């Protein structure tokens, strides 16, 4: 209760100073300046995370190189030239050449596209199946929930290598069978996570409000449940892409991946490994790309999960 702010001045005696104005000019319902939407707020916090931004930029650079690189060097990734096989890096062949004299840089670029493409495809399939089944299980509960969860447990307990081997035998070695085999087992985790989220959110009053308004199950999933799980799903997605890239590399490495002359980072690493003793660069460059790409996705995923965590909201 300080009185120091009151200063006797001339205007003190102005006659209208004591005129009553009441609540004039009060609309009563002023709310602050238009504040940020949820996603704008997430983006603001994401931007403050330097490592995550570094990851995002690095990923952009990698993607640009993968697509633009071969155009600049002008090399063909399938062209075999026995005269220049197993060369080290040079100005003509930036990453050197492989045991058949093909330009390694171009092959890394083309293989990278396939690796990332497989990573994204698997993630998409995983997300669609996992989110829908998870949401259904969480929302419906009871028997539906039991059935879906038992399927999840069954698939989750199958050794996935065996599934991949069987599928590549049945469907042949192709990108489709690879994507199919990997996402067949991967959606289980997403479904469990989404189900957990939905179980929490469906207790929220706004979901009950929608039910009371007569909303159908589909509408509740699409309008209320999914938008509110999207944050966590996004983190899951960013964190799964590198996992798929790595799995693809691993499968290609043991010879279950893409079929030559198509290539991928894993296939390149596998080929390079045979030359490791004498020409280590043939293993080094594909591995470097795998490591860098996985790193960028992890940095972005970490940044996202921090940005989405409401406890850190300032």
């Amino acid at each position, binding site marked *: 209760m*300080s009185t120091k702010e*009151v*200063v006797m001045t001339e205007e003190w005696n102005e006659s*209208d100073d*004591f005129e009553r104005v009441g609540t004039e000019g*009060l609309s009563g319902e002023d709310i*602050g300046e238009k504040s940020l939407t949820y996603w704008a707020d997430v983006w603001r916090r994401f931007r403050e995370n330097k490592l995550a931004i570094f990851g995002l930029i690095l990923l952009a650079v990698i993607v640009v190189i993968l697509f633009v690189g071969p155009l600049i060097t002008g090399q063909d990734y399938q062209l075999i030239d026995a005269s220049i096989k197993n060369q080290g890096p040079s100005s003509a062949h930036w990453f050197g050449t492989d045991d058949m004299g093909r330009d390694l840089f171009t092959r890394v670029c083309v293989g990278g596209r396939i690796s990332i493409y497989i990573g994204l495809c698997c993630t998409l399939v995983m997300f669609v199946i996992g989110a829908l089944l998870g949401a259904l299980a969480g929302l419906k509960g009871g028997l539906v929930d039991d059935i879906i969860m038992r399927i999840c447990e069954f698939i989750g307990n199958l050794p996935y290598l065996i599934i991949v081997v069987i599928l590549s035998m049945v469907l042949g070695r192709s990108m489709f069978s690879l994507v199919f085999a990997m996402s067949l087992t991967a959606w289980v985790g997403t479904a469990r996570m989404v189900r957990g989220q939905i179980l929490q959110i469906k207790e929220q009053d706004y979901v009950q409000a929608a039910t009371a308004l007569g909303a159908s199950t589909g509408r509740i999933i699409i309008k209320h449940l999914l938008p509110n799980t999207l944050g966590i799903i996004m983190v899951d997605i960013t964190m799964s892409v590198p996992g798929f890239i790595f799995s693809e590399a691993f499968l290609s490495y043991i010879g279950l991946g893409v079929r030559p002359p198509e290539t991928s980072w894993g296939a390149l690493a596998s080929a390079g490994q045979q030359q490791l003793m004498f020409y280590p660069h043939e293993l080094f460059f594909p591995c470097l790309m795998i490591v860098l790409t996985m790193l960028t996705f992890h940095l972005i995923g970490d940044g996202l999960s921090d940005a989405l965590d409401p406890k850190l909201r300032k």
Partner: protein
Amino acid sequence: MKEKILEVKNLEVSFKTYAGISHAVRGIDFNLHKGETLAIVGESGCGKTVSSKAIMRLLPESNTLINENSEVLFHGEDLLKKSENEMVSIRGSKISMIFQDPMTSLNPTMKIGDQIAESILIHRQISKEEAYKEALEMLQLVKIPNAEKRMKQYPFEFSGGMRQRAMIAIALACKPEILIADEPTTALDVTIQAQIMELIGELQKELDMAMILVTHDLGVVASVADKIQVMYAGKIVERGDVREIFYQSTHPYTRALLDSVPKIHSTNKETLYSLKGTPPDLINPPVGCSFAPRCEYGMNICRKKYPELTKFSDTQECNCWLHDPRADVRNLPENMIRRRQ
């Protein structure tokens, strides 16, 4: 008058937030005397909890700014200048606090008895057995049935009211001189609230403690407080003893608070007095009186300058331009303008 044990001078607390600096408490002064109950009343966000936590130095140091000229004198010593170690020896032994949520303020993995004994052991040089014995006495003091059995139980085995009793036992274990109760019964049911408030009252008399009661519930205030101060937007706008505030309040905000509760004898469905608008943004607090934009008796001057303090009695004073001789007092409620001292 009884001995003055706590003196808060020009307490100013602000927080760093993303949007800017929020001035949560904007210069408040008050005294607390031995054995009295001072209620701090106000709506959420008015700074009542922040000021009580600032006294205990419980605000996170990373984003809290306390004005250098602020003083919190406890027996003449400034708590704001004490080291963290010195504060630890004061908290819980000289000044204790109980919080609104009894679930989150107890450690879920520790037995109740251990938690009480621990708070005794921190402050006093006694053996474990003695501390345990005292803990048991405390539980009996707060009227927990089967205290011996309850000592060995975990918080989740206690109901809400029991937990709040256990919290009180911990807070009072070292017989503090001041108890700060921050909305102690808000999370509880009315019949339990009545039990807890009665218990606090009895213990307060027994230990001759002073209490700062932070609450928004005017009913609780009417039944236990000796003195009341009303806070609005980080400032104290009026203070007085309990009858002065309830029957002769001089600030329009206090009036508004009192009038917005239905009276026992009021007619049903009659329109209640309701304040327009919302409390101001404390990042850019308004010039002049912060209540002015919502005040139906507001004058031009109110929006330009902060009003001077007007004293009405030894205990009652208020910051409001309506008590200036030049003020426009047309159709003000009766007995709002009191004699000045």
